[in-house]
């Protein structure tokens, strides 16, 4: 079952050091690079990784994340990364 983008929006906002600053993620287009929406610092990126690992019970590898961030992290790319990981036996 595809990962819900709205679920990811909540994870990103919760992973931000200042959730109020991350609120635009709740409504941004899913293909918009998050770096242009909020100050998408490495603290948030790794926080999102940890949150994804906890939420979906998977391990995000360097290769998976590197692929997801090419061209800028977007909600859709994160969802695709998770979907691919969940489909891998």
């Amino acid at each position: 079952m595809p990962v819900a983008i709205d679920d990811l929006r909540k994870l990103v906002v919760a992973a931000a050091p200042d959730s109020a600053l991350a609120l635009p993620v709740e409504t941004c287009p899913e293909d918009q690079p998050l770096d242009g929406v909020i100050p998408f610092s490495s603290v948030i990126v790794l926080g999102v990784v940890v949150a994804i690992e906890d939420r979906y019970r998977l391990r995000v590898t360097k290769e998976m994340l590197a692929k997801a961030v090419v061209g800028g992290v977007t909600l859709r790319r994160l969802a695709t990364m998770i979907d691919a990981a969940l489909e891998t036996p």
Partner: protein
Amino acid sequence: MLVTVFDREELDGREDLLTRAERRCLVDARFGARRRAEWIAGRVAARRALGRLLGDDAPSVSVVSAPSGAPRALGRPDLSISLSHDGAWVAVAATRRQRRRTRVAIDLCDARHEDRVRRLLGRLSIDGTGDPLSPCATWAALECILKLRRLGIASLLDARIGLSPVEADTVQISGLGASATVTRAETENFALAWAVEA
């Protein structure tokens, strides 16, 4: 090398100080409001720092974004500059290049992130020796090396990272390319780490 930290209050809302090239870069970036404000503050900070480095109160050099997003002194390949934004602070490191490949990097971690950063560091594989650094100092040092080597945050995930204090204010980091030495400073408000590599 020049390292300096500015309070965002000194920088915010000073779009009027941007050069024409910086304005064009800003328009092209199409940032959201908050990222836009951060970018402007970073450029104002960078140009002030370059002014100190060059001994020129109003340097005409423009600080634009490289395709990677990293700051670049337009038309001045002899300068290397690095920026870090976090919370109320903007940190800048700048140097005159001794060689074409000389690169400077800086990272600032706001002390308010300590609990969050501690949790994130728990996800990574880090072996430390000597007196442990604070979570924010560790994070700033790692981010500094990522910038120096132009590595993405993904590089941290599967790396076996070694942290070894060399002196009170320096730490050697291994596991992210060749070992590198980072200089650090810490206040009650933030941890700062910077490095230069030829």
